[in-house]
């Protein structure tokens, strides 16, 4: 499938992945993240079930302390 991840085109061999699987595949190990699929916020407990399919727009924003 082809998706948009953080405003960039990305290809994955599978037709469907959960957010947890995408994080694993991309090696994202950030402690705190804001994740959206097509603008819908995916809360932490929904990461194992939220599905990403071809054409989806996925945003993964890494929360960083400082301000």
């Amino acid at each position, binding site marked *: 499938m082809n998706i948009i991840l953080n405003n960039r085109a990305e290809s994955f061999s599978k037709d469907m992945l959960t957010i947890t699987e995408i994080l694993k595949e991309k090696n994202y190990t950030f402690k705190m993240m804001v994740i959206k699929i097509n603008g819908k916020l995916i809360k932490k407990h929904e990461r194992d079930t939220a599905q990403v399919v071809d054409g989806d727009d996925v945003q993964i924003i890494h929360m960083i302390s400082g*301000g």
Partner: protein
Amino acid sequence: MRFNQIKEILKTKTVGIAGCGGLGSNCAVALARVGVGKLIIADFDIIEESNLNRQYYFQNQIGQKKVSCLKGNIYLINPDVEVIDHELKLDSKNIPEIFHNCDVIVEAFDKAEMKNMLIETAYDHIPDTPLVIGLGMAGWGDSNSLHMRKSHNIYICGDEVKEISDSMPPLAPRVGMVANMQANTVLEILLNDQ
């Protein structure tokens, strides 16, 4: 657009500022200078000497509340700005009440958990309000890594990498750059809206 026209538009606008530390105090001052009509500021903290390396406060304000001092400092710069100050710790319950009438909300917390909480709370209760967040501004140098990018109604300012630590403290120049980048993004939202 001439500055007079810009001021006419901005004086009708309300901007919420969540946190009055390095990002919040500097961003609020920039927005006050250009004449945003109403600023709603919130913070629970008092000013410590260690804050003065980046926050818009003065030696004689150490020990006082950040919100009331920031309100006073803004008044000295531009008395036409109406400042509503809330001395409290922002949480998922009070954020919708305090910021629901804002045209834009600026996220200006220091802790990642609080940034996350504000984004989730705004999404649940005030999803149409643009959020301008600060992510990654620790240390010094590396100016070219600072950027603004848009993710739906969230505008992200910072390098999105450098987290504060003992060896990578927050310092006036880079924190100020991101705070002003946030203020600049607020103007972009408010003025391009016209």
